[in-house]
């Protein structure tokens, strides 16, 4: 009760007219930044952080939380419309989001993604309010062994992404791991494949590689297939035409995906490191395993977009748990937020919530309101965004290339990264041409270094013994989860076979909601 009244107070603080204005401005600015390929939440917050120096802490955090959500959603828009993720957490949204847009269903896809974000935001905020103290205890049990296992769980999902092309998929993932080795080796301080360039000592960033492989690669691929000659089949999509709205079937297919994604996202998001990315990829694979028609995944299945979207949004709330209750940043974006706390004169740490309750609850409340405003804003903006799908490709292609170059350059102001991006564009084209899997490369690039780093830390601590994974309770639990994840596809295949058998024996429809609940 006490906690809920805190939340209501927080909402009360956040809805002052000035703060509401900041909230709307933040969501809008965040969305504009996020729509640039490559500029995701952490870049958005970093770019807009200086704007908040003059504001009081509550106003500043309200605006930044809004920017965070706006940018996150902006990344979804580019993932769906032009197959270019804004950050690693939206990679999974391209798998089915982009095929949906190509089928002329960009509108419903974006609306469903916004609804999923809203639902996940609500679930996440509630869990954050009610379960923060308990989840905080979970966060403090995360040392290198536990982190390694979470990352491993994410990497196992590569198998699901790769699908049937096992060999080509493995090569694609290995390419990602290879790219990830560039830079200073955290373990020994040695330089790997930097060729003496100071620009490369921090390694190859995810952003230029993802923009190249996805954005530019897709443009080249479409040109190769004569996309510039096509008369587009999207014509007839009009604002009043009703095709912007999801159908009853979309809703029926994806409502449980939303719930599963939200819960999964929140708890994985609590883990420091790559929470949102691992959560979204995991959610995709869970949806694919429980789906009745897994063969539709990758070809425009709504749950394949909705699950990961819900998961990455809920992971954001999850990442706030260690930030607010322990003063520990769990992701790149929350690390920038933590810097902001200091700048506004707040002392992050375990006492933040006790010492500055107005601020902490104002932040939680504004995260929630940010999601609500995003949903409303989207209802008005989606027709405009979706109309991008109607622009003839020969007009759209050069614009995408310019945006890709601009977006890459803006992140770090590095011309070398622009070069990497363009190189990856060509690579992305050939990967598509010969059936490789760019998504596996990108996920391996993000998670590979984390896996390496945490495994090495673990083995330094245990002096080379793997039994450390079984001696720590939290880690033992995760070992079980990982084992379960490995078995999940087998189990669900068995269930599907059994169901087919049953159906053959007596042709009665099974209740869809029941079968969907099995894996939660």
């Amino acid at each position, binding site marked *: 009760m006490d906690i809920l009244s805190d939340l209501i107070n927080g909402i009360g603080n956040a809805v002052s007219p000035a703060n509401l204005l900041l909230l709307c401005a933040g969501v809008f600015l965040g969305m504009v930044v996020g729509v640039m390929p490559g500029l995701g939440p952490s870049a958005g917050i*970093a770019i807009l952080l200086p704007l908040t120096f003059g504001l009081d802490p509550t106003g500043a955090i309200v605006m930044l939380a809004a920017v965070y959500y706006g940018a996150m959603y902006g990344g979804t828009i580019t993932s769906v419309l032009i197959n270019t993720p804004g950050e690693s957490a939206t990679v999974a949204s391209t798998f089915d989001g982009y095929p949906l847009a190509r089928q002329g269903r960009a509108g419903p896809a974006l609306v469903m993604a916004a609804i999923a974000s809203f639902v996940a935001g609500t679930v996440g905020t509630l869990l954050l309010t009610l379960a923060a103290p308990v989840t905080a205890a979970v966060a403090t049990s995360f040392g290198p062994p*536990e982190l390694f296992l979470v990352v491993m769980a994410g990497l196992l999902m590569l198998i699901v992404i790769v699908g049937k092309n096992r060999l080509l998929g493995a090569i694609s993932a290995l390419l990602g791991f290879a790219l990830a080795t560039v830079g200073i080796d*955290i373990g020994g301080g040695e330089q790997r494949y930097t060729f003496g360039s100071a*620009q490369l000592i921090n390694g190859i960033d995810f952003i230029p590689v993802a923009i190249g492989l996805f954005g530019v690669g897709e443009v080249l691929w479409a040109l190769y297939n004569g996309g510039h000659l096509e008369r587009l089949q999207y014509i007839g999509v009009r604002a009043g035409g009703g095709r912007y709205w999801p159908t009853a079937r979309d809703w029926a297919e994806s409502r449980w995906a939303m719930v599963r994604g939200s819960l999964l996202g929140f708890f994985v998001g609590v883990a420091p490191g790559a929470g949102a990315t691992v959560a979204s990829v995991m959610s995709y694979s869970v949806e694919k395993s429980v789906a009745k028609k897994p063969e539709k995944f990758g070809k425009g299945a709504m749950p394949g977009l909705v699950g990961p979207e819900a998961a990455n949004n809920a992971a954001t709330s999850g990442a706030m748990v260690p930030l607010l209750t322990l003063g520990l*940043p769990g992701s790149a974006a929350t690390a920038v937020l933590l810097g902001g706390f200091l700048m506004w004169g707040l002392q992050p740490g375990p006492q933040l919530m006790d010492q500055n309750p107005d601020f902490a609850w104002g932040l939680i409340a504004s995260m929630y309101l940010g999601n609500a405003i995003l949903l409303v804003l989207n209802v008005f903006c989606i027709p405009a965004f979706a109309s991008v799908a109607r622009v003839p490709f020969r007009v759209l292609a050069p614009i995408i290339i310019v945006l890709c170059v601009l977006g890459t350059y803006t992140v770090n102001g590095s011309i070398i990264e622009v070069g990497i991006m363009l190189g990856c564009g060509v690579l992305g084209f050939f990967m598509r041409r010969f059936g490789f899997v760019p998504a596996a490369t990108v996920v391996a690039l993000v998670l590979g270094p984390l896996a390496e780093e945490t495994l090495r830390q673990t083995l330094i601590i245990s002096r080379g013994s793997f039994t450390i994974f079984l001696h720590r309770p939290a880690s033992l639990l995760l070992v079980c989860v990982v084992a379960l994840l490995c078995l999940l596809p087998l189990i669900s295949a068995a269930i599907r076979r059994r169901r087919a058998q049953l159906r053959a024996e007596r042709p009665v429809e099974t209740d869809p909601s029941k079968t969907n609940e099995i894996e939660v």
Partner: protein
Amino acid sequence: MRQPIKAVVAAAVAAMTITACGASAGGGEQAADNYPRKELDWTIAFGPGGGNDIMARTMVDILKKNKLYPEDIRVENREGGSGATGWGYLFGKRGDPYAISTTSGSFITTPLEAKTGWTYKDFTPVGLFATDNAVFAVAPKSGITTWQQWVQFAKRKGKVAVGGISTVNVDFILHAMLAKAAGYQIDYVPFNEEGQLQTSLLSGALDAVVSNPAELIGQLQAKKMTGLLFTGTRPLASLPTIPTAEALGYKGLPSMPRGLILAPNVPASVQQWWIDTMKKVVATPQWKNYLVKNQLTEDIRWGADFTAYLQRTSTDLESILRQHGAIK
């Protein structure tokens, strides 16, 4: 009427400064009396929200509020390559009196680990204002409350797992020096991120960490971690109970420089202008407040003294890292 007088004064001052700084001052045209005339190009070699960024923006704010720099100041985050990009940019501005940047630990460590093309020696020093020191902390679960107990524990355990940020960094050196002096053995576990370092200690995976007081203060005040030793020369104002390394008998532990530098080969008159101006900045209450809030130890050294400090720290770091094989 006034015009000729001004010109005469300008010429006289220009002549004086030229004689004063001799041949070393490359751009003689930038005499002290017509400096500053242009917009200042302020490089922050790291992203927004980091320690270097906060310090630079605080300084700029003080300069503007007190009208100490009459022209515009353009602040830009030129991040990348652990400072290599930003300071590399400043390095390329040879002789330009309007290019300036703030330093932090990477100013010394990055040239040690990568071919940056520059070192601290290349730049025109303005001054050192403060140093970043470190706190040595353990988890309360361990039951250890004093440094002596820690040393006993470490010796009994045989080898302890201690953490810090990256390998080519002061964190590793502090652990190595303390362990050697106190006579225990360590396995050093390097981390990339502060958050992961701290959770590792709290989760019981690590026996101890070193980190900046600004990063740990929340945990220490909440008694989620126990501070055993502080590497500064004076105890921290906010945590006076943590003994200094010197009080425990350890001398010569390195710290990281928070200072200000100009591009290479800037005229001595401009360097002097900045030293005079920064003397006013560090005297403001806003600056004092910044130091307290960010748990920095004030340590003021101007011009050549700053360079001498940089040289000492850099050689120390280099020789210890070489001994441990972290750099070649």
